């Protein structure tokens, strides 16, 4: 690595420095646009006690779900979970701490964290269990709650294409939480399907500028589909 070149040659190198009890922010919605190989690398490393921030927690044998059997996740902050049996078991037994967060609030927490905004007011969740213990304030006759931002020791991101400087382009709805996650990690690691030379991407078409990206690794992807639905 030299200058702005963010490319690393292995997944091991990509996740170097990840330690027990760290916070990891992950992009992806369902199984779409998840950093599947970076998650596999965390499994291989055996890092434990992680706090994971992600909209969902994968399924039993794919995505973040694969970190559950070895109890690598201590706490998850997510909007929708329980698509897998092991998750359910650990949650019901109190082995896994689950902080349910509305989807838009979760996205905004990551965005704010990456943008240097420590907290924000939102109407989402006012008067619900989400508001418990949070400051409330009225603006123009409406009620809002104060939601703190989130940052992570690591952010793990899946993009479609990148140049060596870490400028990223996402593909279709695989974009989802990835751009916000990319901004919110102390170390942001991105895996992509294709890496091109700087200058090859049209600057107008870049979704995430390379300034947010620390490490870039080229991967191959299974891209599993959770709900294969076709028209009859």
């Amino acid at each position, binding site marked *: 690595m030299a200058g702005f070149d963010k490319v690393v040659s292995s997944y091991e190198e990509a996740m170097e420095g990840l330690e027990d009890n760290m916070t990891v922010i992950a992009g992806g919605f369902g199984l779409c646009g998840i950093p599947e190989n970076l998650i596999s690398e965390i499994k291989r490393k055996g890092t434990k006690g992680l706090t994971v921030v992600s909209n969902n927690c994968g399924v039993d044998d794919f995505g973040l779900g694969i970190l559950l059997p070895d109890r690598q996740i201590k706490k998850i902050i997510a*909007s929708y*979970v329980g698509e897998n049996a092991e998750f359910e078991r650990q949650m019901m037994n109190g082995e896994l701490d689950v902080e*349910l967060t509305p989807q*838009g609030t979760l996205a905004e927490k990551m965005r704010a964290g990456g943008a240097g905004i420590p907290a924000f007011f939102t109407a989402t969740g006012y*008067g619900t269990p989400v508001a418990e213990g949070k400051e409330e304030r009225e603006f123009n006759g409406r009620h809002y709650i104060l939601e703190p931002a989130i940052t992570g020791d690591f952010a793990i991101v899946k993009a479609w294409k990148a140049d060596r400087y870490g400028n990223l382009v996402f593909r*279709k709805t695989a974009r989802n939480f990835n751009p916000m996650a990319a901004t919110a990690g102390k170390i942001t690691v991105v895996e992509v399907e294709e890496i091109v030379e700087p200058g090859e991407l049209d600057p107008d078409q870049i979704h995430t500028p390379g300034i947010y990206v620390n490490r870039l690794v080229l991967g191959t992807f299974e*891209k599993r589909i959770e709900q294969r*639905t*076709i*028209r009859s």
Partner: protein
Amino acid sequence: MALSREQLAQRVAQELQDGYYVNLGIGIPTLVANYVPEGMEVMLQSENGLLGMGQFPTEDEIDADLINAGKQTVTMAKGASIFDSAESFAMIRGGHVDLTVLGAFEVDVNGNIASYMIPGKLIKGMGGAMDLVAGADNIIVTMTHASKHGVSKLLTNCTLPLTGKGCIKKVLTDLAFIEIKNGKFYLLERAPGVSVEEIISLTEGELVVEGDVPEMRL
């Protein structure tokens, strides 16, 4: 006769207007897309980051990178756009979506809605529902009027943990179309063949019935 799922969707579709941006929740709301009136253009918002959701793909069109908020594979309609999740909820929270349709377990006379959590049962989470009810002005809740055992879901006070407070103004059940205002339910329409008396008996919260209540046209 109580409305079928398809009939609920048909009645909701009558609330669509040309040029509407619409967010449809999972379940019955999704069916509304099948009843967009001929010649009318609406654009469907899927909160994972797609405006202009198309129909389900053919086997050849399936793309793992293109799904809806229910995680189903979809296609894009003409004029679609893609964005990240923060942008998606900026649209929702900022009140830019014209109509939101979603399901619920309970609603009450103060416009409170409970739709995501039954204590003691498995809690899967609220997904985007709390953002949708807090951000949208024009919301239609679709639900069954009462449980199989005849227990009303239209209440004086919701009993389950809330998804949103004071945010629901219109409810379409399998028996009735109801408006919520001034801390009361108002009966606007009844399902074909369903009597006002039956609706009253299955509505626990205060229900105002003014004059002859028309039957829905489907």
